[in-house]
């Protein structure tokens, strides 16, 4: 999609309650004036298929599929520059987290390297209560693209020699340090 393309709204499937599903973060999204400050402030905008400004308009219009299947949210590095500069004061970066929640819940496959990053991180955190960087990276590369890891071999070895990487035995079974808390949170989220 290019910025000059006209969207035929009768031809796309729309969910007019899309914005409501992002609430409370998105309650001010309807006040977006399409000024484009978000796009101009985004360090990754040039690599996105839909620019941030366009994405917010599509959310307003209820274009769920286009938004959730685009890679825009996964290129957000959470730097808060768009949110800090938005003249309407819309918490844009916070809404991106909600979009990622929906994309993960709906198991959208396209951007697996990103969704796997989040799920792997959450898994390690739950198991040990703290991040184990080496195990996280190993699990991440094994479940996405093991060949990619080879490109990191030289860097990894240097990090290891410098004492930056800690070797710890992975814990494969048994109860995770934060299992109880994660389970309780899941129960409470269901009650809502």
């Amino acid at each position, binding site marked *: 999609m290019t910025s000059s393309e006209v969207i035929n709204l009768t031809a796309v499937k729309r969910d007019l309650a899309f914005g409501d599903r992002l609430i409370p973060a998105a309650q001010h999204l309807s006040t977006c004036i399409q000024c484009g400050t978000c796009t101009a402030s985004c*360090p*990754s905008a040039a*690599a996105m298929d839909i620019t941030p400004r366009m994405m917010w308009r599509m959310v307003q219009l209820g274009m769920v599929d286009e938004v959730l299947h685009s890679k825009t949210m*996964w*290129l957000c*590095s*959470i*730097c*808060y*520059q768009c*949110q*800090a*500069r938005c003249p309407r004061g819309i*918490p844009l*970066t*916070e809404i991106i*987290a*909600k979009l*990622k*929640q929906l994309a*993960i819940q709906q198991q959208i496959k396209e951007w697996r*390297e*990103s969704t796997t*990053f*989040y799920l792997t*991180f*959450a898994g390690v*955190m739950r198991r040990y*209560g*703290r*991040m*184990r*960087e080496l195990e996280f*990276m190993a699990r*991440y590369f094994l479940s996405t693209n093991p060949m990619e890891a080879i490109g990191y071999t*030289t*860097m990894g070895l*240097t*990090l290891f020699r*410098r*004492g*930056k*990487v*800690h070797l710890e035995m992975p814990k494969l079974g048994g109860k995770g*340090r*934060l299992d*109880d*808390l*994660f*389970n*309780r*949170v*899941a129960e*409470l*989220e269901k009650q809502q």
Partner: protein
Amino acid sequence: MKYLFYPGCSMESSALEYKDSMYASLQALGAEVEELEDWTCCGASVAPVMSDLLGMVLPARNLALAERSDGGRPVIVGCSACFLSFQRTIEAAADRVRLEKMNQALEVEGLTYHGKAQVRHLLDVLANDFKRSEIEAKVKRPLTGLKVAPYYGCQTVRPYASFDDGQAPHSMVGILEALGATVYHHLHEATCCGTALLTTKPEIGMGIVGTILEDTTAADCIATVCPMCHMNLDSYQDKVSRVMGKKFHIPVVFLPQLIGLAFGVSEEQLLFKRHMVPVGPALARLPA
């Protein structure tokens, strides 16, 4: 001054030199720092993507521990991602309904969060709790002639710019000048380091890092206050050089390492040898 300290996962492993140099600097300045016991991961930017409540509860667990340990002391946080997680949670706790929900979850850990714990970024503490004259008085080995490019990153000052400006931060300037260093200003002091994009979308992440490195090549080193910024700017320089077709070789240090150095702490104790781009040549040019 007395503080609690929440290290967070990175300062315990890949950014151990940040933690050690923080202790060395704060002890020299007469501060008492005690590590929070039994802390767990703040959830970073990952927990809020798993669920709204998880994004609040993981930081709240640590804030509850801090309140139980000693109400009065502020909690120092050195990692900007942890700092952001805590600020988000503190803001949410002002809403009694959300606070109640967090506490329903924290029951399983036998903890209660009251929304009272105070969290401060290490940069805030260094810049605002000590007078410039106090820092100057401790300097034994001035960093004369060392051109330092400050790099604040994003989550240190955004969206919670409680102690500095979110667009044009300046907290490091007074400290660096007090150490005798020359501040090398550039246009990317508060831009993003690329965070997880270096892993998930390396081609885009390396472009972001390259832009920052390109802007700071005339400096002797870059000073950071976040483990993620440090990892991205220091570790990827060889790869970024290949991608951009231009050689980058600029040492990246943690601000407290420079403070410790100027205070006369040995280079070994400050763990400069852990960095990917060697810091030695830049330090060798300093007056003995």
